[in-house]
């Protein structure tokens, strides 16, 4: 923040009466309430700290490979609470001093990070948290969410809402499991089976994307309703086939499961290697997709046209861009990515298709789109937050921590609501997303 703005903020904070407009005074009042809230939670953290200096918090990282030598960060839970308390109070005081112009959302991370660490330390209560595992499984859990978010970004950038990601992922998971099982039964070639399963899942979901586009563009069905049709239909059809066929003939639902693959050289990077480069191939595909899509959307002519169709389709149409063709194509590509996300669920995580196994991951992906400000890299980090919530949940259940599992399981959903409500940060999406476009 530059110096003059600070001074200006100071002035308005010192003399609230001089703020002539009502909205200025409202903003100032909101800022003060926020400041008091920050300081209050800081004090609460400090109060908790006093009782927990005796409890050690041990976070360990593996250096070279999983299960090998480890580096430990050892401290006490009390210290973590003090850190959380001090951080909260500092941000609160900054807010109080700088008034309404204080950009508090940027500082939230400073408050949230020690709070999360302290809460985690308090929950595991003296046991050791193997952070390499936690972070690596965050990455795994974030992978389908990242992919769903990338699909959502592609659709929304082109001007189409894609609420149907959830259903597409479910169908993708189903097709991948069945196709992979069938190929494996006839060839017993695991690699071929996986590739065919993934390819067919992607293709099916691509076609579902075209169906969504066709309903929305050709028949002008409200895009939310069209998406809901696909979501509900996906549940119905996969349930029926599962119950009628797969439940009895389990050999059609036993795909070879995709194992983690150590990337040479990269996996040897100390600390980071075992976290980022000892994962299932899907994770690497997600890295590549994030980078490639970032390049395509922001650095190519295709990306410019895509963004134009979502921001100002009328202008794009005027300069001769075929907006509807772009929307059809992006929904097809989005479907392909959603299919990939779905196949991860059945081929990697559980090793078979289960009814309604997506459990809201498509919707969480859409929340990651918003959280990540419609940018692939932002969405990746947003997905990591959700993945982290997931990983912490499994860490706590492994360590046998006495927290009601339902409470933990609801964390990703609550975070999603907070994210879409924009409490974490208000960002603007493509202006025309969701509105039909009449091409002349």
């Amino acid at each position, binding site marked *: 923040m530059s110096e003059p703005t600070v001074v200006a903020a100071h002035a308005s904070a010192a003399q609230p009466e001089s703020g002539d407009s009502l909205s200025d005074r409202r903003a100032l009042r909101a800022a003060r309430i926020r400041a008091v809230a920050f300081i209050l939670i800081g004090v609460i953290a400090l109060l908790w700290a006093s009782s927990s200096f005796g409890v050690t918090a041990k976070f360990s990282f593996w250096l070279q490979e999983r299960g090998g030598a480890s580096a430990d960060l050892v401290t006490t839970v009390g210290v973590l609470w003090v850190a959380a308390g001090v951080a909260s109070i500092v941000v609160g005081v900054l807010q109080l001093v700088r008034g309404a112009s204080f950009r508090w959302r940027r500082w939230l991370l400073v408050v949230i990070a020690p709070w999360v660490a302290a809460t985690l330390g308090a929950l595991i209560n003296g046991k050791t948290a193997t952070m390499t595992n936690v972070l690596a499984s965050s990455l795994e859990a974030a992978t389908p969410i990242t992919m769903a978010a990338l699909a959502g970004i592609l659709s929304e950038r082109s001007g189409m809402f894609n609420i149907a990601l959830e259903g597409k992922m479910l169908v993708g998971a189903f097709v991948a499991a069945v196709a992979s099982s069938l190929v494996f039964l006839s060839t017993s070639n695991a690699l071929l089976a996986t590739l065919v399963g993934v390819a067919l899942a992607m293709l099916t979901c691509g076609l579902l994307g075209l169906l969504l586009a066709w309903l929305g563009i050709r028949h002008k069905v409200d895009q939310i*309703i069209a998406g809901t049709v696909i979501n509900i*239909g996906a549940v119905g059809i996969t349930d*029926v086939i599962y119950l009628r066929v797969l439940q009895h003939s389990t050999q059609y639902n036993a795909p070879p499961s995709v194992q983690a693959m150590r990337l040479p050289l990269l996996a040897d990077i100390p600390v980071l290697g075992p976290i980022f480069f000892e994962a299932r191939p899907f994770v690497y595909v997600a890295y590549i997709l994030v980078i490639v899509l970032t390049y395509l959307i922001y650095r190519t002519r295709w990306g410019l046209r895509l963004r134009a169709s979502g921001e100002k389709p009328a202008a794009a149409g005027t300069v001769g861009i075929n907006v509807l063709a772009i929307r059809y194509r992006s929904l097809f590509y989005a479907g392909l990515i959603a299919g990939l996300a779905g196949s991860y669920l059945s081929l990697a995580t559980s090793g078979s298709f289960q009814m309604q196994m997506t459990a809201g991951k498509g919707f969480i992906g859409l929340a990651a789109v918003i959280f990540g400000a419609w940018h692939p890299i932002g969405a990746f980090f947003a997905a990591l937050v959700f993945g982290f919530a997931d990983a912490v949940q499994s860490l706590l259940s492994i360590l046998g921590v006495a927290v009601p599992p339902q409470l933990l399981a609801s964390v990703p959903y609550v975070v*999603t609501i907070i994210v*879409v409500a924009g409490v974490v940060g208000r960002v603007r999406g493509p202006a025309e997303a*969701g*509105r039909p476009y009449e091409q002349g």
Partner: protein
Amino acid sequence: MTRARSLGRRIVVPALSVITALLVGAIVIVLTDFEHLSQLTTDPGAAIGGALGGVARAYGAMLTGAFGDPGRVLTALQSGNSKDIAAAIRPITETLVATMPLIFCGLAVAVSFRAGMFNIGADGQLRLGALAATMTAIFLSGQVPAPVILVLAILMAVIAGGLWGFVPGLLKARTGAHEVITTIMLNYISSLVLFFALRSPVLRAAGSTSPVSKNLVPIVDVPNIIDLPTIRLDWGFIVALLMAVAVSWLLFRTTKGFELRASGFSATAARYAGMSAGGSMMLAMTISGGLAGMSGGFMVIGTVGQLSLDISGQIGFNAIALALLAGLRPSGVVMAALLFGALTNGGKLMGVQSGIPFDLLIFVMALVIMFVAAPGLIRSIWRIKVTPPSPEVPSMTTAAPAEQA
């Protein structure tokens, strides 16, 4: 004359939508009939016949399950034996029992859609309502007379459901958070809340290892309409019908209802006319949640008599389909709920007798929504000329969130 014609026009597309959806459902039954399909190369005639027979058996069972056997009803009525009568009319009353929550939730969805809010959280609101009613009944058990418990339980159900609906309404109005995402997330959360609550020994049935509540019937039970053994149809159904009248009155005869519909058509226009679009969103979502919650209340202390994890079944999904099918009209919701109630109740017998999973109906419902929302599809499939009716369904995506003050 014109009225009759417009009614006819209004019915053609929904009717054909349901028929088409059931036909596609039949195709799914045939295609998943591996037993007969495997004979296709050796004995095609028998394979096709067997597969089509499977469809006939499935849909036949659905029909019997929904309406019973008229001949049997007549003989039972003549014999005058109450047990026989009960057994004969049970399929029909069970259809009405299945219809009751569908009316409530269909109305809930219709109210929110009218205000431009795509509430797909009826499931969650129903669960919370059911939980509130269960807790009220158990906590007040033996302390106050049963009729008081009944009223309080329904009241708490309405409040709980209303709150669960108010939250996404508030978030949409204040921050623009899309209600589809928030209501879905609240659905997942409500399941976990229910699971968590049913762990408690206070609520859980004694000696049960599965998460179900105590039987509420000895504490409080909504009185039945017909007093016959095994008949579950109770006054909740009548209340549901009354709610349809009330919602119709609210939407079309009151200023608030007008504002609500105006906000649904165009939040911007409503704002320029001096209405509070955000207020309408919150109001509509609260009413919507309250109706769904009431449904949950009437289920646990009435027809079902117990709270379990799958109390809502697929009611939320069905409610969306039937509200759209009904053109968001309360009278249409009642008619469509009767149809869906028959499908739901008949679907159970279909599952038992023909082994076709009940979930087939979920797929059929999705197709119904699709055909109703895209009447062009129906027109091109059946090659009929129907002039498109005026847009009944306000757009969900173009309703801009209220700007922050």
